[in-house]
């Protein structure tokens, strides 16, 4: 089953990996930083090995986005960012795993200090009749 793992973060200045410019992450002792980094790399390698990682992208600064709306009978565009909140969508991964449990197991490793990771199931077209 497919899920997206959404990384909500606010690196200052904007960049990737987000932990490079997150104060909360930088405040950690170096060995703790290394441990978190290695755990994430290991999970990513394992997911690649198992064919669970479909794709993903790191996203550019939310201020570089353009918003499109329909207002007063016309389509109009304005400059981003979209959300007023501090945390912005920084990147996403699309995964295909055997179960929700597996998705939760791997998604936990995408989180780090100072940011929130959202695991969202994808909808599928079919249904069961029972």
């Amino acid at each position, binding site marked *: *089953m*497919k899920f997206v793992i959404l990384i909500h973060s606010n690196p200052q200045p904007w960049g990737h990996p987000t932990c490079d410019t997150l104060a909360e992450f930088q405040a950690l002792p170096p060995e703790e930083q290394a441990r978190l980094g290695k755990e994430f790399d290991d999970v990513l390698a394992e997911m*690649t*090995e*198992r*064919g*669970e*990682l*479909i*794709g993903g992208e790191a996203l550019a600064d939310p201020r570089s986005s353009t918003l499109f709306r329909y207002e007063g009978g016309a389509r109009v565009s304005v400059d981003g960012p979209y959300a007023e909140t501090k945390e912005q969508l920084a990147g996403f991964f699309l995964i*295909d795993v*055997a179960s*929700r449990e597996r998705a939760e197991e791997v998604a936990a490793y995408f989180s780090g200090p100072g940011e929130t990771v959202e695991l969202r*199931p*994808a*909808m*599928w*077209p*079919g*249904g*069961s*009749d*029972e």
Partner: protein
Amino acid sequence: MTDDVGLIWREQAPLVLTALLRRSRDFDACEDAVQDALVDAARSWPRSGVPDDPRAWLVRVASRRLVDRHRAEAARQRRERVVVDPAATAPAADQPCVVVDHDDTLALMLRCAHPDLTDASRIALILRAVGGLSTAQIAAGFLVPEATMAQRISRAKATLRQADEPLPPAAPHDVAARLDAVRTALSLIFTEGHTTSGGDRLLDLDLAREAIRLTERLHRALPDDGETTGLLALMLLGAARFDARSDEQGELIPLEHQDRRRWDRAMIARAVAMLESTLPVGPVGPFQLQAAIAAVHAESPTAETTDWRQITVLYRMLDRIAPSPPVALNLAVAVGMADGPQAGLEALRRIESPVLERNHRFHAARAHLLERDGQREPARAAFLRAAELTRSIPEQRYLRRRAEIR
């Protein structure tokens, strides 16, 4: 390629591959050789006609291609050795070509069910090696990019190569566990096909039909294996309802509202006959019990006449030998149908758990029971909660509709 050639190919490819694997353990080289033979067939059969014995033809051509590949590889290695070692060994003599005259489906499936592989890899390998499907077709069936599926398959093959198993694989005591893994994989392929109506129709792949075709072959190889028979019967009983489970708009029609005249009676009769012959023999496993439950539904002329007592008994047995949250849930539903909504609600209360709390079917079952018990508002809330949790678009529409009915 014409449909005829395509069908012959899908039937013969695994047999040809098995024939080659008897001579070489290099899965990739054998597969490449088999693909080469297909290209040759696609080129020459339309002109010269399909040979009388297409398998012998394909094995002959594929073997020749495999030898060519080995020879080219050996020559390359020899050249390298000549540089470092003037006393290079002579090339190996060509081995005679062994034509398989029996179905090696079982050996190949057991090999694809290696314990080091994940279910996803086993599924992909079985469809590729036994089903003869292309990576593109498998990827389309599972709605993932072709590159992802290609990676999954090549990693799985690398794992098998490392394991370096002879064919037929697996020590006898491993066979039972591997067979379980094969059946699980086939059942997952069927479920995927049963629930996913998306995918690239141009590739014309019906995973449910493919799962049945493969299970039929496993059943032919192991006619006396009760669980394989049970799995096949279960699939046939599910497939018999395909046409009745959605309306013209593609909306989901649940079991109790389906037009039972649209069920495939011949398919149901075949599944029931299979079950009647296998159930009295030997130990009864989970697939046989699930099939028996499906058969009770299938044999009832209307939803109202369903023998819920018998279904309750069967779910109790299933709950004993293979307990799981979905089985507990189905048991509670059956109790509710047999003994009334309050008994069902009580059964649901007993099995509440954090896992089921997030399961849309738990809330849908509660909603149906609450509604039958006349508790309209709680029922509505439960339908809406179920709609929030489901990942299926038709199911979500159905549950929202139910929430609005007054």
